[in-house]
């Protein structure tokens, strides 16, 4: 097992290096930081712009490969370079990663667990009322873009708040600025803020997972070993949870890594809409400001996150499926 993980890690390290390097090259050749300084009044002398760009390692007159080497050399020491404004990429990113990860992790857990449970139950009650309802709902959710879904949620939350006459669901930002009160109050405030974005993230995820899990479960439900389990004298419920769900979980776990990547991109909208200052928001901003170093750093982070999720799903897969572990 340890050897298996070590080999996987080594593979992933190679993949991260390749992915990040390609992202840097792409960003460095597509984005044009020089344009940030053009059209100013009074015009900035080209020599000053050149010196400034060279200082930030963003000068397009330096050969791309040379800039790449400088960037990679600094990165090897943990330095992601500087933003177009001159600040450190690393500092700003660290805080934002925390924000995004909080959103994603909670959303992912809530979404996948709900999806798996809904899907499994729907499969057990195939063609029943719950199955039909969950199928219809998940298709609706899948068909509605995140933007629309999030805004619907916001409208619903505002109505809800009006109806109960209190600000229960908070729709903007990650915390109320200048909040008075102790640690507990701050915690509750954060949860109030977290509720809606998490819901909007996890709804889509739950929809995907429930469809997937329903199919997996249906495959397993017809399997001979469920019949064997019941022939042993296990009740239907025990046979379904212990033998069917347990086996049907394996493919769902493999799916985990893929959704994590999709989610990372998906949060961009959610963050924008709910006013969270996360990585997704920054990625969009940095592209519009031609901030090559930030784009590369975020790509690096995304690659790392996706591969960590892949590693997690590998580990889970190995834990759940002995055929992988032994064979």
């Amino acid at each position, binding site marked *: 097992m340890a050897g298996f993980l070590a080999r996987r890690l080594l*593979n992933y390290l*190679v993949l991260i290096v390749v992915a990040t390097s390609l992202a840097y090259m792409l960003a460095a050749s597509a984005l044009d930081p020089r344009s940030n300084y053009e059209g100013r009044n009074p015009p900035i002398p080209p020599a000053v712009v050149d010196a400034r760009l060279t200082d930030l390692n963003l000068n397009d007159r330096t050969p791309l490969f040379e800039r790449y080497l400088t960037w990679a050399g600094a990165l090897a020491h943990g330095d992601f370079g500087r933003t177009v404004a001159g600040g450190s990429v690393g500092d700003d990113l660290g805080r934002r990663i925390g924000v995004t990860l909080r959103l994603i992790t909670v959303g992912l857990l809530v979404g996948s667990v709900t999806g798996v449970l809904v899907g499994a139950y729907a499969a057990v009650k195939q063609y029943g009322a719950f199955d039909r309802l969950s199928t219809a709902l998940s298709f609706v959710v899948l068909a509605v873009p995140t933007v629309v879904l999030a805004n619907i949620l916001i409208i619903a939350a505002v109505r809800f708040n009006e109806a109960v006459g209190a600000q229960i669901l908070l729709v903007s930002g990650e915390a109320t600025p200048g909040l008075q009160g102790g640690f507990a109050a701050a915690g509750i405030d954060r949860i109030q803020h977290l509720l809606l974005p998490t819901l909007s993230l996890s709804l889509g995820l739950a929809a995907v997972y429930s469809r997937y899990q329903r199919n997996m479960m249906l495959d397993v439900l017809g*399997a*001979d*070993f469920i*019949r*064997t*389990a*019941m*022939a*042993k*004298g*296990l*009740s*239907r419920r025990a046979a379904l949870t212990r*033998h069917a769900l*347990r*086996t049907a979980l*394996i493919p769902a776990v493999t799916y985990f890594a893929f959704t994590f990547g999709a989610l990372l991109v998906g949060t961009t909208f959610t963050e924008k809409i709910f006013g969270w200052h996360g990585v997704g928001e920054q990625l969009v901003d940095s592209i519009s400001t031609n901030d090559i170093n930030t784009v590369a750093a975020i790509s690096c982070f995304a690659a790392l996150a996706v591969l960590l999720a892949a590693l997690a799903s590998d580990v889970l897969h190995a834990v*759940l*499926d*002995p*055929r992988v572990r*032994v*064979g």
Partner: protein
Amino acid sequence: MTSERTADARSRNGRTGGHGSGAAPLPLRAGSDPVPADPVLEVRDLDITFGRGPGAVRAVRGMGYAVRPGEVLGIVGESGSGKSVTSLAVMGLLPPHAHVTGSVRLRGQEILGAPERTLTAFRGRTVSMVFQDPLSALTPVYRVGDQIAEAVRVHQRIGAAQAARRAVELLDLVGIPNAAQRARAFPHEFSGGMRQRAVIAMAIANDPDVILCDEPTTALDVTIQAQVLEVLKTAQRETGAAIVIITHDLGVVAGFADRVLVMYAGRPVEVGSVDEVYYRTRMPYTMGLLGSIPRLDRGREQPLVPIEGSPPSPAALPPGCPFEPRCPIAVPACAESEPEPVRVGSPGHLAACVRSGEIEAEGWSPAQIYGMRAVASTADTAVRGERPRPRGERDLVLAVDGLVKHYPLTKGTLLRRRVGTVRAVDGVSFDIREGETLGLVGESGCGKTTTLMEILELAAPQGGGITVLGHDTARMSARDRMAVRRDMQVVFQDPLASLDPRMTVHDILAEPLRAHGGREVGPRVRELLGMVGLEAGHAARYPQDFSGGQRQRIGIARALALEPRLVVLDEPVSALDVSIQAGVLNLLEELRTRLGLSYLLVAHDLAVVRHIADRVAVMYLGRIAEIGQADRVYDAPMHPYTRALLSAVPLPDPVMERSRRRILLEGDLPSPADPPSGCRFRTRCPLFRSLDEAVRRRCVEEEPQVRRLGDDHGVSCHFAERLGAE
């Protein structure tokens, strides 16, 4: 809690002495026992219907049987006869859309329609089940030992450690070597035979009163089947349980069961003691079944007697006796109403046929009843009787010389590296001459299919050579290959999968003709359909409109379209029911004589091969163990493996089957990636074990080559003569 309830139920039944005794006599009670004990399982008037309304499928109609402690009841029938559904109904495991009526009593207690709690208390404790496919019967993610321990703990209040010990005991009982260690293995680490042993261990974990076995050996090779049947006998000895064995194999029933019940179209049509049913058959369907199975102890001289037509669809049953449309002795009365099973001859022997009395009185034999067609086949034999030129003078159609096919075993994703070699075919030689049939037999994994695929590929093999109709495949131009393809055709195992469902029969048959430049295909298609016993009008239909046997006939017609000289048959009848199989085998035989074809037949069923092959080659782990004239190999096998293989095939003859000495092979087939040194069979060889140390060394060190022992008989065993002297 559950176990207490069961115990309670048992004691109650003990007091009342069982319900069955007070009730009216069973319609299908067969008391071969002089002092019959109360039945442990009694099924009466069982009706199972799937769906509702006009589209409802009546899968089982008026099924009934009773088994007493220690008794073995065999239920035989073709696919769709309702035999498996019946056992699922007994277990209460049918899907919710099945409507079940009638009565199922376990130790006197009615369990049909009982609440789930009562059923779970019975399942696995009073009645347990062994399923057909051992590969999927175990949950892949739990250890085998844990799954058996789970069965123990569902019904008995014991600790986890104690249950685990019991699981090891059970595995040991069913003959898993090194049980303590193997209990920790996962199902995928077990071979098919071992998994079936584990399933049996699970079934006997709580000392049940009845074990239902649904085709327990159908998915297994014959030598493994023999092992598993032996384990079932052990299990029965240990538990004293009654066994209901459901199978389509009349040979298995002959040797294993005390009584037999024959099902047709959801109903029991004949029931009685095994001897009664096999030797004094009173129902034409049973006679047909017995007459249509190819037998290992009879050569091709005795033609098979197929039953015409195919079983009725349970959704559209004929008004009278369901067998009437296929019955050779049907009278108008048969079409009017369905006959009830009535007693014929000795007590306990019942047959559902209006003419059973006549059959009894006149003592008609199956041959007489199916006489008409048997005569026709005999005429065929007469034509065939005039033997063609001796083998040596006939043209060589196919020659395979030292054929090798190895598959690399690789590991790693980023850096693939070869870690081993699967020696699927490792030096195989044989030849086929004009007008003869060579049967290639062996258990799964012996390389017979790989050999066949290598021949069909018409490319240069990895090692050795293949010569088809005088052309060496290694030096073949594209044009030659096209020409040879025309002369060598193939019939596949699964008739449905090998016919394009979106093409009409006409298009299927016309395709090879057009591919080879034919223009006027219509007359030829009609001719082909006639040749395989189908009507010209069938050409416009699609494959799904045909029954399995008819589909295989279409497959044969397609193979014959180009007038080939060599036809390769890959398990041509293994997907078909016995009564259908006989017709296809007879057709193949007839076509061979009429068209002068040569066949290369790959099959695992040794009886089928005996029936149509002139010569056989027995394969073991990628090598040929024995090759030669069919009669010689079957009547006087010289290789210990052939002997064991032949002795493992059950005969549909109770007396012979009981008196046979079975050579049980130990263990499973070794992995072809790591075959034993020297003789590959030595790890399982009974002869090897009887040799003394000094002589054995030769088996370990030197790989035996096929050597001739007589005219057209070769064996790859160093000590074959010792076996013959035994």
